[in-house]
């Protein structure tokens, strides 16, 4: 089942590349100072930073990983949005942006330097830089593998070409170019995926038809079966879900990850910065319908429904050309195959290649023409994720590592040059990381693991930093180290059911607890890391000397004036937007309960 894109599909992809590169070239002339390159001169309106905030995060893990999870776990995957992302986005907009934007910090690590001290910043900057490069590599790997499987393109060539295009536009136009392209990519992804959900749902007979075809009630309810890990396909119970994903992981990501916060920092005013994540929350809430539903549908439709007479033809073609075979798969999700092309079997069951769920849907439902648009949307999602990581990396490298430790007194032009150089070597390391990522199977699980180690303790640090003026630099630093260590120890002492000790956990030689699933283990790793960081930071802070109040003005809640939204219509006020977002959110959780 391999599609054969026509000239029309290639033209669409070509036009998309032309526009993406064109935007980079046009913006080159605006890049005069390092502030233009790294912060877009703090001049971008809220609707643009809002869509970029969303799109920068919209990498491989979203489109491919969420489709895969949808196929595997069903509608409960929406917890990543309706429990995870949205409340955290509302929180960062309402309560944290005043400190990020108001302190005039140029990056998240720099805020830590202003609020705490140099070593806390260093720790955060370095771990962030490493994580960013890794994420970007995962994006690239996913794209390379996908294009290879789906279209027979060369894995290496796919990675190099996409990296070069991203390199070109971020090198030329810096953050502005990344942000503007992210807006373009956002629309492309939405417009490219709507027909997929529409055709898929129409084919299975709407939501009710999908429910009937799935035939497993636990896959079509998000909360009903979360009472105990044994009753739902995710193997997670409600507390682990709410605390682990909903609180620790999601707040850790959306509230402290510079990749997304950088978009808000580029906004043209405090109000715009605060509205950035709130504006992003509206489309974000609806994304499950675009990315999770196709995955669920992929598991229940068959290639055979591609009109009766064609069936024999399709399978004959597959056999003849040795391409993706659906033999032994589920719906149109093919099985994973070993080197000899035979389906992988584990515990008597065929292992499915869930990452192919969404891409196979594109192939199944899009005729030539729309297929080009769909492929473009896929590539756009990879590229926006990659560019987001690249711009975040080059800022943190230049401001928080290079300017802080290597060369403190160079001219602004030199830092602008260094930003461009960092774009080049950051992407080069990402390409290397793409090959490392090749050995993991579910992209989502790997990312969750990385986030759990690095990001989970972080949110405790920011929470205390912004809302407890007594927290000290030494406390924050020890808390972060303690939290990350706790994550590693917890991961090393536990194992998800059915896994052997190794990268999945249990590497400390002793397994004290077995979780029903990898996801449950990851959520609990995060909970342990966060709690440890919180406790250690509080204890050490109480033992060390606090900073005088005067130095903390504008950095801590108690010592900062509340932002006033003067001159805004009522519907533009951040608080009003937040209430609307949360109301819709409750309704969505209720509908899919």
């Amino acid at each position, binding site marked *: 089942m391999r599609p054969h894109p026509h000239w*029309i599909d290639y*033209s*669409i992809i070509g*036009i*998309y590349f032309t*526009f993406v590169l*064109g*935007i980079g070239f*046009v*913006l080159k002339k*605006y890049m005069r100072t390092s502030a233009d390159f790294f912060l877009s*001169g703090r*001049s971008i309106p809220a609707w*643009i930073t809002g869509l970029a905030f969303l799109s920068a995060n919209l990498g491989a893990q979203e489109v491919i990983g969420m489709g895969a999870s949808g196929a595997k776990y069903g509608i409960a995957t929406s917890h990543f949005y309706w429990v995870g992302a949205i409340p955290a986005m509302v929180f960062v907009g309402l309560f944290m942006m005043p400190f990020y934007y108001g302190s005039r910090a140029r990056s998240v690590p720099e805020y830590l330097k202003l609020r705490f001290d140099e070593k806390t910043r260093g720790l955060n900057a370095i771990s962030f830089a490493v994580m960013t490069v890794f994420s970007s590599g995962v994006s690239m790997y996913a794209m390379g593998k996908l294009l290879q499987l789906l279209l027979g393109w060369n894995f290496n060539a796919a990675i190099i070409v996409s990296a070069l295009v991203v390199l070109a536009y971020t090198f030329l136009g810096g953050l*502005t170019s990344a942000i*503007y392209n992210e*807006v*373009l990519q956002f*629309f492309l992804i939405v*417009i490219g995926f709507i*027909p997929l959900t529409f*055709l898929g749902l*129409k*084919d299975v007979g709407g939501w009710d038809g999908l429910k009937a075809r799935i035939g497993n009630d636990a896959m079509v309810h998000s909360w009903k079966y979360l009472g105990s890990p044994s009753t739902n396909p995710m193997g997670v119970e409600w507390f682990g879900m709410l605390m682990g994903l909903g609180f620790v992981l999601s707040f850790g990501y959306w509230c402290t990850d510079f990749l997304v916060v950088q978009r808000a920092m580029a906004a043209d005013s405090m109000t715009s910065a605060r509205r950035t994540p709130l504006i992003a929350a509206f489309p974000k809430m609806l994304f499950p319908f675009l990315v999770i539903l196709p995955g669920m549908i992929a598991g229940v439709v068959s290639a055979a429904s*591609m*009109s009766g007479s*064609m069936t024999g033809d399709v399978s004959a073609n597959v056999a003849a050309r040795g391409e993706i075979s659906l033999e032994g798969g589920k719906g149109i999700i093919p099985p994973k195959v070993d080197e000899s092309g035979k389906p992988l079997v584990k515990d008597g069951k065929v292992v499915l290649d869930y990452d192919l769920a969404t891409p196979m849907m594109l192939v*199944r*439902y*899009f*005729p*030539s*023409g*729309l297929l*080009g*648009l769909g492929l473009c949307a896929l590539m756009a999602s990879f590229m926006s994720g990659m560019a987001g990581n690249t711009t975040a990396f080059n800022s943190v490298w230049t401001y928080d590592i290079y300017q802080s430790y290597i060369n403190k007194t160079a001219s602004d032009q030199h830092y602008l040059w260094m930003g461009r150089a960092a774009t080049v070597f950051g992407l080069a390391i990402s390409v290397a990381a793409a090959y490392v990522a090749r050995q993991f199977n579910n992209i989502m699980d790997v990312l969750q693991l990385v986030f759990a180690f690095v990001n989970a303790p972080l949110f405790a640090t920011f929470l205390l930093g912004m809302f407890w003026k007594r927290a000290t630099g030494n406390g924050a630093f020890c808390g972060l180290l303690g939290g990350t260590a706790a994550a590693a120890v917890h991961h090393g002492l536990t194992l998800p059911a059915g896994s052997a000790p190794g990268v999945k956990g249990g590497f400390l030689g002793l397994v004290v607890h077995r979780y029903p699933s990898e996801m449950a283990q990851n959520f609990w790793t995060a909970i342990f890391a966060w709690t440890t960081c919180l406790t250690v930071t509080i204890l050490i802070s109480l033992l060390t000397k606090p900073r005088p109040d005067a130095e903390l003005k504008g950095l801590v809640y108690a010592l900062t004036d509340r932002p006033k939204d003067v001159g805004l219509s009522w519907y533009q006020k951040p608080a009003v937007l937040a209430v609307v977002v949360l109301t819709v959110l409750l309704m969505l959780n209720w509908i899919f309960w």
Partner: protein
Amino acid sequence: MGFDIRLPIGMMFSIFGVLVGGYGAATRGSEMYARHSLGININFWWGIVMLMFGGVMLLLARRRAVAARSADRTLKIK
């Protein structure tokens, strides 16, 4: 900044609309619609939607450009 992202977005989707919609019109009744898109000529209809979206974006970009120019003029008169 004198750059409006709605302009390239509008241009790109208008081109996509004409291209995909035109292709849909030219391939009316093709068996690929029966095979893939449930018998719906999705290229044609989605091409029209993209053309409309592109048009709206271009219109918004143009409105802003006009508003910016007249604001400029008012400043000069003052």
